[in-house]
Each structure stands twice: as C-alpha cells, then as structure tokens.
C-alpha cells in the first residue's frame, strides 16, 4: 500500500467514526498513552531526561515534554520538533489505524508559537473589518488553523476559510457579507 493510499484510508476511517463522547475521549486517552510511550523510548535512546505530561481535551490529545535540558528536540526554527510530531503521529497511527489527534510540544515551544499566531490573527481580523479586504494568514497546520477559525468565529463581521494544500494550507479571513455567496 502506498503512503498516499494509507493516508486516505486513515482519513476515511476518521470521517466514518461515530463514537459517543466517552468512547471518543477514551480513544484520545489511548492515543496520548501510545504517544507518551513512544516518546519515552525515544528520550531513552537519545539519552535525554524529560518529564512527559499528558492532557486530553474534547478534541485533542496533548503530550508535553519538559525539563529536557537541551534544545536538541526543538532544533533550528523548531524543525526537530516538527519531525518529532510527525514520527509520533505515525507511530500512534500504526497502532490505532486511525487518524491521530496527538499534539506534541517541547518546553512550551509550540504553545508560544500558537500565541504569536493568535496575535497576528487578531490583527488580521481588525484589518479586514477596517479595510473590507480579505487577509491571508501564513501557512499553518490543521490544529493551528482550527484555533484561528475559532478566533474568527468568535468575532463578528468576519468569516474564514482554508485555502491551498498542506503544508502551505492557510486561513483566509474575509468580511462577512450576508447573502453574498463566494
């Protein structure tokens, strides 16, 4: 099976799920446990210390690694952390055969990045309201885009959509013209 077919199968399995809230949270718990196990083993092989925290919310499992004592797992411009996220996702998906909803962070790096993106998004919302022109945000991953859509949805007078293909997919914010189809 090719990687693309595998991805597609995983995506379809995700859309097909009709779990109760409890089953869904159990699934996220399970994903977080698998992710934490994978990361623990990896830290071992890297000969790094680290505290691993798990948090499960209604739509996401968070695995946070702290006290690593080095930027090695973050890397230049977060590229090693990106790799860690991808490998963790793949390791979890291999076992669950479902799209994983695990988000990995090291020393709060991605949380800080997300806060910056939220600031830029608020600025963009203000700009759209002022100028009436659409504003495109920078490319983001699925979770980040979801947070931005949430911010836009909370603000009146603007709407948002995603455009383009991963990894260049980005959120576009437009003025909300009621009855205007576009």
């Amino acid at each position, binding site marked *: *099976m*090719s*990687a*693309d*077919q*595998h*991805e597609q199968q995983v995506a379809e399995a995700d859309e097909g799920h009709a779990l109760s809230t409890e089953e869904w949270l159990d699934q996220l718990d399970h994903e977080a446990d698998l992710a934490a196990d*994978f990361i623990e*083993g*990896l830290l071992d*092989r*890297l*000969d790094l210390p680290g505290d691993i925290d798990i948090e499960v919310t209604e739509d996401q499992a968070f695995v946070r690694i702290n006290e690593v004592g080095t930027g*090695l*797992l973050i*890397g230049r411009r977060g*590229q*090693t952390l*990106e*790799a*860690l996220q*991808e*490998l963790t996702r*793949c*390791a979890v998906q*291999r076992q669950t055969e479902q799209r994983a909803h695990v988000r990995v962070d090291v020393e709060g790096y991605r949380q800080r990045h997300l806060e910056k993106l939220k600031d830029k998004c608020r600025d963009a919302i203000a700009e759209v309201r002022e100028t009436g022109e659409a504003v495109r945000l920078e490319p983001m991953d699925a979770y980040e885009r979801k947070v931005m859509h949430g911010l836009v949805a909370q603000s009146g007078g603007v709407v948002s959509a995603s455009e383009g293909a991963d990894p260049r997919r980005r959120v576009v914010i437009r003025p909300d013209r009621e009855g205007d189809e576009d």
Partner: protein
Amino acid sequence: MSREVLEYVAKALVDQPDEVRIRELEEDGQPVLELRVHPDDMGKVIGKRGRTAKAIRTMVKAASSDDDGGAHVEIVDE
C-alpha cells in the same frame, strides 16, 4: 547513538519490526545509515510526499550531532 535512534523509530513505524535492517557505512568519508524494511512497510517509513522519511532524517541528525557530525539516512528499496 544515531543508529539506536534510527532502529527504534523505524521499528515503531512499521508493521514488521523484525524485518528492519540497518547497515552503517561510509560514503565519501561521510557516515551513512542504510535502512531496509519489509517491502510492504516502505510507505510507512517514507510517508506522503516523503514527509516521514524527512522526519526520520531530521531526528537521526539531531541524535548524531554530538558524536559523529550527522549521519545521513538512506532508505533502500529492493
């Protein structure tokens, strides 16, 4: 250390971990880690548009930065 990291990661990604093979060699004086997996698992270590392979290389490079200056991972298709 980079070999252990590669082996651990590769085995976590594939359905047939017993088929994971790693060979250490040198090409033009540079350390190379050759990775072989079961043919059915190739997609798992390469990923969509090579995303997983790229992540493996980045992680192995991070692991090796202090001892051997960054081993390059080659995924061998046979």
